[in-house]
C-alpha cells in the first residue's frame, strides 16, 4: 500500500513535442471538427500562434513521450490493474500550440486512505513549462488504488 512517505516524491521530468500529425490523429479519434483545431488560419484568427492543443491533451503528451508512462505507479509499487482515475484538473496559464516542446515535472502531493483502507487516493501535481521556460500550465490528478 502507498503510504505518507510518498508525499513530496518527484519523478523524472518528461519532455514532449506537440507534433501536428499525432494531434490530428487525436482529433480524428474524438471526432473533433472545430476549425480552430483543424486550420492554422482559424487558430490565428482567435489569437493563437498556431493550432492549439485541446483542453485535455497535456495529459496525453505527458504519457506519449514517456519511456516509462507508468513510472510513478511502478515507483510507488502500485499494480496497474488496481488503479482507477479519480479526478483530473488543468489550469492554463499560457497557450500551447503545435511545435511547442513541453517539460512535465510531477510530484506526489497527497496520499489519503478512504473506506477504512479499502481505497487509497494518491494526488499528483505536474508543472508544465514550454521551450522558452514559460510556465504554461499546472495539472492535477487523483489516482484511486483499490487495495
Amino acid at each position, binding site marked *: 500500500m502507498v503510504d505518507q512517505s510518498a508525499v513530496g516524491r518527484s519523478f523524472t521530468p518528461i519532455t514532449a513535442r506537440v507534433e501536428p500529425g499525432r494531434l490530428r490523429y*487525436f482529433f480524428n479519434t*474524438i471526432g473533433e471538427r472545430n476549425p480552430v*483545431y483543424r486550420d492554422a488560419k482559424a487558430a490565428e484568427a*482567435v489569437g493563437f500562434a498556431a493550432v492549439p492543443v485541446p483542453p485535455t491533451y497535456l495529459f496525453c503528451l505527458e504519457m506519449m513521450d514517456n519511456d516509462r508512462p507508468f513510472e510513478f505507479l511502478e515507483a510507488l509499487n502500485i499494480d496497474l490493474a488496481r488503479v482507477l*482515475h479519480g*479526478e483530473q484538473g*488543468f489550469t492554463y496559464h499560457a497557450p500551447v500550440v503545435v511545435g511547442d516542446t513541453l517539460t512535465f515535472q510531477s510530484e506526489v502531493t497527497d496520499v489519503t486512505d478512504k473506506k477504512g483502507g479499502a481505497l487509497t487516493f494518491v494526488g499528483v501535481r505536474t508543472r508544465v513549462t514550454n521551450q522558452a521556460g514559460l510556465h504554461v500550465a499546472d495539472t492535477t490528478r487523483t489516482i484511486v488504488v483499490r487495495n
Partner: protein
Amino acid sequence: MTTLSPAVGERLVHKAFPPISRHTLALYCGASGDHNPMHVDIDFARQAGFPDVFSHGMLVMAYLGQALTDAVSPVAIRSFSTRFAAITQLGSRLTCEGTVTELFEAGGERRARLALTAKDADGETKLAGEAVIAL
C-alpha cells in the same frame, strides 16, 4: 477572445456523442499514449475483476472538453477539472452539458464558472466537473 455575456443558470454547453465502440478505445490508446490494457484487453479487464473493458476516463473528459470548446473559444478557458464519478461502459452514448454557476472577476478579467457533466443515455453522471472561462 469570446464575446459571451452569459447569465447565471444559462446552459452554454450541450453536445451529444456517438456510442463508444471498442474501435474508439483502441484508437484512443494510440492517440493519447495511454496504453493501459484495461481499456482494450478483455482478458486483462476480467482478471482485474471487471466484466469487460471500459472507457478511459480521459476519453470522456476529451468529449467534455470538445463540448466546452464548441461553445467557448479555447483561448478563453482558464481551468478545467473533473471528477470521474462512474465507469463509462462500452456502447455508452454520452451527452455533455455545462451551465453557468457564477460570474466574477479575477486576474483583471471578467470570468464565469461553469458546472459541467457528462451523462450516459440513462442519465447516469460519468463526469462531474467545472471550467472557468474569461468573458
